[in-house]
């Protein structure tokens, strides 16, 4: 295993197919190219968007993905994505890094929710909590949360991924009851489910979005007051360019070229400012690191490359642009000042 990884590092610039692990060799090299560490379904979106005409909205709605697939989308592309959809649950395959990221994400979400809500039931620590998994893909993160007792709704615009997720969880009666999937976008959902969730999880999603304001606003809409928002994404630094783009995309080919756009990365400070402007307060930010040799993630002090963020929706009524002013009299509630 180590020798394979080292060989790839050394000869990273040569043709990929020669050094691929035989277990994950796919039929065609075009299919090879679509491998991703992040929520590739959203990246797929990104690429589809680039292929379509300017008539479509620049926001990440693409609610016409189904009609698009019937009219303008290349049937070869559809077939390719269908083949990829079934690779979600190959634990040693293209999505291995996403599966191993669960070792960090699930305890992070679980422990922070336990801090807020306390343990509900022995054996099912998250029982009674409703969680929304945005960009769930094949359900890699939704299933562990469901096993911990939460009621999970996973949404993803790509129908094939949603179908794969549904099929995979259908065999287990525990999951069947607790984890549901829907092929739609966050905007569509936000209209129906106002203040419906105790937590929203957007893991490896925001680095692919064009309109973060809309995203944050929808999150704020669907969360109950005091609800939690969990985001994992990539920082915008020189180091993340070297490791996240150069090493991951060009040298090691962990992620296909063009998946990530460094301009779209967001630093924790900017993300914090953004969510705070929509009525959240950031409770924790932690750095994460992927070790390509062992295939394992670990927490680290520095947020220079990957990081995870936990924010809580403020309980009081909050308008964007509002600032709470200190009250001179402690008995009086603070005066609000509107800056419009």
């Amino acid at each position: 295993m180590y020798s394979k990884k080292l060989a790839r590092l050394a000869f990273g610039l040569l043709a990929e197919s020669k050094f691929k692990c035989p277990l994950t060799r796919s039929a065609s090299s075009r299919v090879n190219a679509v491998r991703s560490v992040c929520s590739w379904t959203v990246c797929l979106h990104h690429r589809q968007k680039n292929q379509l005409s300017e008539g479509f909205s620049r926001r990440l709605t693409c609610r016409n993905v189904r009609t698009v697939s019937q009219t303008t989308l290349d049937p070869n592309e559809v077939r390719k994505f269908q083949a990829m959809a079934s690779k979600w649950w190959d634990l040693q395959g293209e999505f291995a890094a996403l599966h191993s990221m669960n070792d960090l994400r699930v305890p992070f979400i679980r422990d922070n929710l336990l801090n807020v809500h306390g343990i509900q039931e022995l054996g099912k620590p998250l029982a009674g909590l409703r969680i929304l998994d945005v960009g769930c893909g094949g359900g890699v993160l939704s299933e562990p949360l469901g096993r911990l007792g939460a009621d999970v709704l996973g949404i993803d615009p790509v129908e094939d991924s949603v179908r794969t997720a549904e099929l995979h969880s259908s065999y287990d009666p525990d999951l069947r009851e607790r984890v549901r999937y829907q092929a739609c976008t966050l905007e569509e959902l936000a209209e129906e489910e106002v203040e419906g969730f105790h937590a929203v999880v957007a893991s490896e999603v925001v680095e692919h979005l064009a309109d973060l304001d809309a995203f944050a606003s929808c999150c704020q809409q669907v969360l109950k007051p005091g609800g939690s928002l969990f985001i994992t994404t990539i920082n915008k630094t020189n180091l993340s360019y070297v490791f996240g783009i150069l090493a991951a995309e060009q040298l090691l080919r962990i992620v296909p070229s063009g998946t990530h756009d460094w301009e779209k990365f967001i630093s924790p400070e900017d993300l914090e400012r953004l969510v705070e402007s929509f009525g959240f307060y950031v409770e924790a930010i932690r750095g994460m690191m992927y070790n390509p040799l062992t295939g394992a993630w670990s927490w680290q002090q520095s947020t220079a490359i990957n990081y995870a963020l936990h924010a809580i929706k403020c309980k009081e009524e909050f308008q964007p642009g509002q600032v709470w002013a200190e009250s001179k009299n402690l008995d009086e509630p603070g005066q609000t000042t509107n800056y419009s």
Partner: protein
Amino acid sequence: MFTFAKAKLAVLGTGRRCVARRAFRGFASSERDEESSTSDNQLFDIIISGGGMVGTAMACSLGLDPNLAGKKILLLEAGHKKEMDRVPETYSTRVSSISPGSATLLSGLGAWDHIANMRCKPYNKMQVWDACSDALITFDKDNLQEEMAYIVENDVIVAALTKQLQTLTDHVKVQYRTKVVKYIWPRPYHVSESIPWVQVTLANGKTLHTKLLIGADGPNSMVRREAGIPTVKWNYDQSAVVAVLHLSEPTENNVAWQRFLPTGPIAMLPLSDTESSLVWSTSHQHAEELLQLDEESFVDAINSAFWSNENHSELVETAGSLFRTALSVLMPDSGSARQLPPSVAGIGPKSRVMFPLGMGHATEYIRHRVAIIGDAAHRVHPLAGQGANLGFGDVAYLTKVLSQAAFNGKDLGAMQHLLEFETERQRHNLPMMAAIDLMKRLYSTNAAPMVLLRTFGLQATNALPPLKATLMKWLHSFTKRFQPEGP
């Protein structure tokens, strides 16, 4: 010769681990049974196949774990339920030496109280000596105050654990008199239309499904065989004769005795003030002869095996006593006086049995959705009394691993945490098994060079307290206490 054996074990164990780490562990043939659909009330989270000491302890341990509350666990046992309202008058011949670590595990399960109420014998000292020389080594905690280990009948252990299981019936079910006829393994990849669980077909025709199968079905494990897990094994040319001995006179029977004869070790383990258990490992032929002897001749054979010096040669005696003198100059307090075990007057009625001995080690303890523990994974010579303790160590660690996996929302049959269990236990078990095998081979000969080597070795180890203390600590580290993490 034994270095080769050790190396072979190590290479097979670790080599396979390295190669298989990232590759999935597929099965040789994986059948898809499309006829039987998964009916919800027959899907279990964990099925344990085999209800011996280790299997029942595993069921208890999983049932008591807080992170596994709500999981459906099933124990399948081919025999009948072993209940013991009162202990029978006569002792049973199959006993085990339970180390303090195993006793801690059993008391954590709540079974140790039942065992203490039924019958168990602590012993404080162990004397191990050679038949071919005067070399001996004694193990004891200072001044015989603390208990070194306990001799407990196997039936008592199983009965105590069964009693504990009855308090967990809400989520641990047990099916007795249930034999498994077939296992069908799942594909490691998720293929649509195939059942992703392990299918267990019983003799009565029912099929059960489980997310994780734990094989605790003994040295001839069907789970291990059906899963196609390669096993390194060989038969020793030895059988063990076990019997219950009546001592000539009551004594404060708190010492375990073991003498290495050229044909094999003979051990006397205390059961009470008047009775002890015999485990005599010897060649097949001699074992059969011993079974044929009448009671008096058998008793004479036992006493002479422990007491006679016919195997001493002059060379070895002289060399041995010179070495001992040298050691006593260097370390004046060292050396222990050789004591002789109590003499035997008779044996328990109808209590002579023999069974063949062998060594076995499964090169892998796990597959996708399968884990094997206890004798199914490792089978050792009884000379060190560690077989049961290694099994209890497996129980403790596997429970810890599964508990943590459940708290992280993982699929219980996933390879990642099962690999962690396998690595950790192989790291513990392989050195112990290699050492036991080495001891057995070292003491199987009376050729002078080997005798001199082991004489000096034994005397030196006895004389140097740091060496002996390290050996004791190493022996007892094999069943460490494990605390599962949780909320």
